[in-house]
């Protein structure tokens, strides 16, 4: 049996995953890094990017909007702002969301914090479409 570690993926809205896992690829603030069992303790900020759960052909990818990861030798916890699994992307909904976000982005040019928020929403929508494409090409 492969060596595994406990992996939890949670967002403010729900616990997305809680399972034994063999490998992760995480979009860290200083670039992507891989996690295997027995990894050295690490706390990292996360960038927007693609989280890969599992190894090889069985790997599942998630669009991840940023957050934090805490890596311990036998346990990894990811606190994500938002995630979207690649097999459940609703293209129409994402396109719509992206349209709404880009409108808001234009409307909020004056306010920096809001503008940044909507820019991030747009980027996340793009990322969702991206992982969706990857899923179809698989």
């Amino acid at each position, binding site marked *: 049996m492969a060596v595994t570690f406990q992996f939890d993926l*949670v967002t403010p809205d729900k*616990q997305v995953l809680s399972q034994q896992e063999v490998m992760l690829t995480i979009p*860290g*603030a200083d670039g992507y890094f891989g996690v295997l069992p027995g990894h050295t303790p690490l706390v990292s*900020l996360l960038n927007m990017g693609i989280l890969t759960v599992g190894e090889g052909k069985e790997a599942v990818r998630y669009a991840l909007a940023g957050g*934090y990861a*805490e890596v311990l*030798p036998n346990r990894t*916890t990811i*606190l994500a702002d938002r995630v979207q699994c690649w097999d459940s992307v609703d293209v129409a909904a994402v396109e719509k969301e992206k349209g709404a976000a880009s409108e808001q982005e234009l409307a909020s040019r004056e306010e920096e914090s809001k503008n940044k928020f909507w820019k991030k929403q747009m980027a996340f929508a793009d990322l969702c479409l991206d992982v969706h494409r990857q899923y179809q090409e698989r």
Partner: protein
Amino acid sequence: MASLKALRQRIRSVNNTRQITKAMKMVAAAKLRRSQERAMATRPYSQQMGRMVQSIASRVSKDSAPPLLAGRPEPVKKVELVVFTADRGLCGSFNSSVIRAVRGKIAELQANGFEVSITCVGRKGNDVLKRTFGHLIHRVHTAVNRGLTFEKTEQEIAQPLLHDYETERFDSCFIVYNAFISAMTQELTWRQIIPVPEAAKETENDAVAAPPCYEPDEEEILADLLPRNITVQIYQALVESDASENGARMTAMDNAVRNAGGMLRRLRTTYNRSRQAAITTELMEIISGSESLKG
């Protein structure tokens, strides 16, 4: 004894009340299911977040810790209370228990020489507290539960609060809300959110002894994580409070329906008795009238 007409009117009005409260109970029950799910779904994130903050906090030296974590060097003088209540009433002691606790806390803090300021989340808390502590309330949020999201909480409640902390409007912040236990029970909860409470910092659960690597570095992570943690706690309080409110309202309305039912039964008995009495009297009169004609 009240007249038959008055009794009839009363029965009708009690029956109406019963139907209204019953409808409100149904609405609360439907809302409860959704808000309960949301409260439960939020818990893992805030627990994990709390754990992470603790495990980092326990490894950070006191001197280099940012004010959100360790507090300001000078002693606490100004205390901020964030009070979570409902926007509407008719939910039993839900609002009043929070308000009572806040009153007690304010009296205690003021007696110890602290300056108190209040942020009200929910209309009811503001309505009642402004009568006695109007000068302390400096911000009110209402109708937050409609379309509540994490992002909205962050922008509307957490950011202004953090801004106030940075501009030294207060040195320490508590939140008070009803935590959701079950549909029947809520638990009044006080929690210190700024700075991170001392006791929590010392709990070293399953954290490893070796200091972990930080990416990018400790300070940057804390600078991002701590405000986030405040938002999470506020969001958690909001969803818990929302679920508790619906639970409390459902229970209160259930009691009201039952009371109205009991009242209706008693009124109907009284009504039927007096109707029967009236009929009997009438019959007696007719019989005695015809008897006297015979004679």
